[in-house]
């Protein structure tokens, strides 16, 4: 996966709690191979009318948001279906980080496995941020090594990330190689536990 270290970009506000992964990418896009890409399916039914015309009211159809790399969402962002395509659609569009008060658990994990940085900030901070972003465009500056995000009002916020996931993101590593370097403990467990039966 592509490493993540530092990112500055216009922030794209996506208001509304419980923005589920069906809305991030509808089910009819899920049969594609990964290498075909999912950018055109991102927020499809919010972004386009039935005839394929852009909906002018949707934020990603307006400047300067079209090239936004940071999304700001509300509580329980990307809840619902485990479809990893939600992460792939955001990445393929160019998004590398999402800020929200909370995320669907499966999406959160899927993001970290693919180089999309999910950042949890307090509800009040995100609320104020969204209000501002819906009034005027603004940039967010994210620094992963120091685990800090600078918001358009100049405020700087620390964020949490699991140290191992941070290491993988900074170096663009996925964890299968690491796990398979730990075959000793896995084999020992299987000896004790029974390889085929529990």
């Amino acid at each position, binding site marked *: 996966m592509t490493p993540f270290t530092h990112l500055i970009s216009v922030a794209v506000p996506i208001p509304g*709690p419980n923005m589920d992964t069906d809305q991030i990418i509808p089910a009819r896009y899920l049969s594609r191979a990964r290498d075909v890409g999912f950018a055109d399916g991102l927020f499809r039914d919010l972004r386009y009318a039935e005839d394929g015309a852009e909906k002018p009211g949707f934020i990603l159809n307006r400047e300067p948001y079209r090239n936004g790399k940071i999304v700001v969402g509300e509580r329980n962002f990307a809840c619902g279906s485990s479809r990893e395509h939600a992460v792939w659609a955001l990445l393929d569009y160019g998004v590398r980080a999402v800020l929200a008060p909370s995320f669907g658990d499966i999406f959160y*994990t899927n993001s970290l*496995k693919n180089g999309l940085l999910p950042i949890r900030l307090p509800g009040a901070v995100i609320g104020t941020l969204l209000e501002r972003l819906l009034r005027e465009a603004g940039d967010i500056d994210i620094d992963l090594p120091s685990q800090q995000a600078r918001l358009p009002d100049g405020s700087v916020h620390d964020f949490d990330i699991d140290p191992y996931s941070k290491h993988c993101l900074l170096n663009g590593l996925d964890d*299968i190689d690491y796990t398979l370097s730990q075959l000793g403990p896995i084999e020992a467990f299987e000896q004790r536990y029974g390889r085929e039966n529990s």
Partner: protein
Amino acid sequence: MDHAEPRTLFDKIWSRHKVIERDDGQTLLYVDRNFVHDGLGPAFDFLKERNFLVRVPARTFAVPDHYVPTDGRDVAGFAAAENRAMVEQLARNTEAAGIEMFGVTDPRHGIVHIIGPEQGISQPGMVITCGDSHTSTHGALGALAFGIGATEVSHVLASQTIWQRKPHSMRITVEGELGFGVTAKDVILAIIARIGAAGATGHVIEYAGSAIAGLSMEGRLTLCNMSIEAGARAGMVAPDETTFAYLKGRPYAPKGAEWDEAVCRWRALRTDEGARFDHEVTLDAADIAPMVTWGISPQDAAPVTGIVPDPANEPDAERREGIEKALAYMGLAPTTKLADIAIDRVFIGSCTNSRIEDLRAASAVTRGRRVAEGLVAWVVPGSGLIKAQAESEGLDRIFIEAGFSWREAGCSMCLGTNGEIVAPGQRCASTSNRNFIGRQGPGARTHLMSPAMAAAAAITGRLTDVRTMMVPA
């Protein structure tokens, strides 16, 4: 080992599966059972790209369900090439890896979360994964079962393990007796309405209390299935005599002396007296009525005797906007009686509610009645075996004579990946698990409810309190 500290059921399963525990809070858990379906091609592609082999093929089971049309069983005859490709790809991938697959024409074929328990593959005390959020279903057997993404699926296939941070614990206790016409579906909708769609995010739920103990295995599967709709990582019910009676004699369950040993081990899978949960929620069974959803999240659920909420009466700005958005999408006016809402379609099916007990409940309401004029109503059994069982009981005749379409097993109209969708603007009474915007098709409007409630809606053509159509036992 000495466990002086009282432990939860979840603690016990978690600690038994620890392979590596790191200082940074990450634990490598061993996976007993992994399920794959026809939407997980990317997980196999990833393995191929990296030249990884499947470590323990005997611990993974496969079934195509998401892309299988339910109007026939002939893969070559699938109208959409895309559906055919997804199903054939799964067959190729699993055959190459030596993974057992229940193919479309296998009589045991069905929805992955139906057939795992039905075949006895999912058992108490196991860690179970699948690249699908409704994997929480299998927790009904007293297992730790959770949905994962495609990249994690490839990790499980390659290593038979998964990295996890230990989730928090929550116990939801439902005490008392469920009222007439009230089912497990109503219980879980009432729970989600109470705690919210993110109410259990980061938690594993254990369902407890006399009302839960009184549920059949089918009911517990429905309950645990929708744990994810409250945001939970997993949901579980401690195994008991109901669980053992359900599993005994199932094809993949232990046999003979092994069965006796297994039951002995499973009896210890209970939360110890005095064990502490991070959160506790309590509901009174007697307060739960047949539920329907009116909005665009499973938390937007209310007793069928209620009304559509009025945003004007909602003091909280965020919630007010949420109600306004939901009513605009759903095409509903505030304060409309829920029982006055007319519907266009009925879907009885999905991993939530397509088991034999669900079909019996729906057929009992349907018997001797007719589906309302102009309404399209489907029954999609959860597996080939459920379909055969229902036919041996004559349930198919009841549905067909009433005007329902009686179909083959699959996920079908729950999410429409197989092309079976609800038309834009149409309103569907559905026994599935998600009423999200566009879930059943672009512009489709979904009302979630129990199978008996969906059957009642099919007959009257509007959301209906099924209790008015049932004969008390």
